[in-house]
């Protein structure tokens, strides 16, 4: 009972956890590489949302405003963290997309099961003389 009440007082946290799990599900189960990247981005967004949410302090007052000025207060540090996190996320996403382009060019597909079945039948979608290239 107590637990349920506590849970509903933090709906925002529950939403971010749900988003995180949705993203993780897509990342781990989808066979399409691009969809995996999308799942990854959903997870990243959920974590950023969570950290920004923790910066909201109930009844907090801004430390550096002129007397008489009232306003809602959010701790700036989580925002700075999330900005850094977004930069990291962008670089991870771009690297993943570039790698997907290379997989598509070299293995002919972005679907994991198609890549696997192409690997089982040599010649069907065999990459152009990779072995000899590596050893020459």
């Amino acid at each position, binding site marked *: 009972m107590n637990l349920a009440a506590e849970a509903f007082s933090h709906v925002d946290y529950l939403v971010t956890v749900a988003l*995180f799990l949705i993203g993780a599900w897509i990342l781990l189960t989808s066979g399409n590489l691009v969809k995996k990247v999308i799942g*990854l981005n959903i997870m990243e967004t959920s*974590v950023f949302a*969570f950290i920004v949410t923790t910066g909201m302090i109930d009844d907090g007052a801004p430390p550096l405003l002129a007397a008489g000025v009232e306003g809602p207060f959010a701790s700036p540090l989580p925002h700075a963290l999330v900005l850094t996190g977004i930069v990291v996320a962008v670089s991870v996403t771009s690297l993943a997309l570039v*790698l997907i382009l*290379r997989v598509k060019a070299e293995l002919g597909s972005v679907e994991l099961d198609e890549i696997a079945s192409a690997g089982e039948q040599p010649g069907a979608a065999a*990459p152009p003389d990779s072995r000899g290239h*590596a050893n020459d």
Partner: protein
Amino acid sequence: MTEWPHWLPILAVLPLVGGALTPLLFHRRPVAAWFWAVSVAAATTLVAMTLLLKLIASGGLSYAVGGWLPQYGIELRFDEIGAFALPASLLVLLSLSFSRHYVARAVDSGRISFYYALILINLGGLNGFLITGDLFNLFVFMEIFSVSAYALVATAREPVAALAALKYLFLGALSSLLVLFSVGVVFAMTGTLNIEDAAADLDLSTPMPAALALAGLATGFAVKAALFPVHFWLPDAHAAAPAPVSAILSALVVKAGVVGLLRTLELFAGGEGLLQPMLNSIVWLGALGALGGALMALVQRDIKLMLAYSTVANIGYILIGLGLSTASATTGAMIHVVNHAVIKVLLFLAAGAFIHRTGLRCIDDLRGLARRMPFTAFAMGVGLVSLSGVPPMAGFVGKWQIAVGALQAGRPILVAVLVIAGLLVLAFSVRVTNAMYFRPPSRISAAAATEAPVSMLFPLLVLTAGCFGLGMAGQVMLRFVAPAVPGLYGGIP
């Protein structure tokens, strides 16, 4: 010079800046890029050595980035765990030295300057990760070495490399996000990002959020460290990468996950009820990893895959030691982190020298190579004997300490696990050594191979000497690491 305080940030900044400059200065000039990268890594090694001497002389160092004092600003600290930066820099230096002739074949010529840049950036991220005392900084440096590692796997020419790098990226990014999420939880609970400060402030009486943070951190770093059930990204990525990159990934990047665990478990030192079940499960997963990794290594035909699975096994040993958390088991784990790094760089580089000269990577095809490449074969043999933990060699010290710790903790079954896994390792070592030394060549390229060039032999011989030296220096390392151990998660005796 000794009073100059800025050596600590230089340790991370030097390779990061040096790496970023490499493609700008030396694009399409591979020899110049190689020379530059080796110089930067050598300078970093010297900085790490300076710091280590200062640590031995006057105890731990602390540095406030930008003059903002710890607890508010970012704190860098150099302690017995941070001292891992010295072997890390040295091993990267040797792998870079090895790379000169290797990358000319294994990497497209247009990518070579980026290859060196990424290795230096990877070193910068690792060093930063080792010396930071700030939770968010830990995440940022982790991303620096992780993202550069994903890209390094993809520098190989084989078409599977891009796919292996992608698998590594997906799992790596998932684990990074778990860590970031937990850092967010810890920050929300304590309002601070400084690790020591957060450890003091973390409220462990309401177990729910703290348990969430502990689970996120432990899972995240376990994926980075390739602990048993989440190890499956490792063999693909480590086998597909160019050999010097495999060496760095297996020896250092994977160990960063272990260091991450060491650093963050201390947050939860007060909560016996939280930490103990976690440590217990780490022990059992480590035991499964040690057995499973050694078994999988035994059945591999590709020598780099075999070495990759043996990394899974060794991470298993290390995490058994960490999870037992008795003094000797933890020191054993910390020593094995370094010794296994040296051994595994040696093995991957020796395998790389074989691949470079013959183009063969199947164990059965290496037959008779000892006659044509005696020094490389000797290095490979020494590495394999060390890996199986035969007494005077480097692999022995850590495993012995972990086994002693298991006995002290009253869990002899773990000693049995260690012994059985050791025997399995010995079995595949004998198999490779037998093929190299006592079989006639079965391939023309193996029969016609010539000894590897000096830039490859030099690191191999240094590392071979290291395998003997670290075995002898076990006492010294034990005494060096010992002061750090009581501080780890509450100092369980």
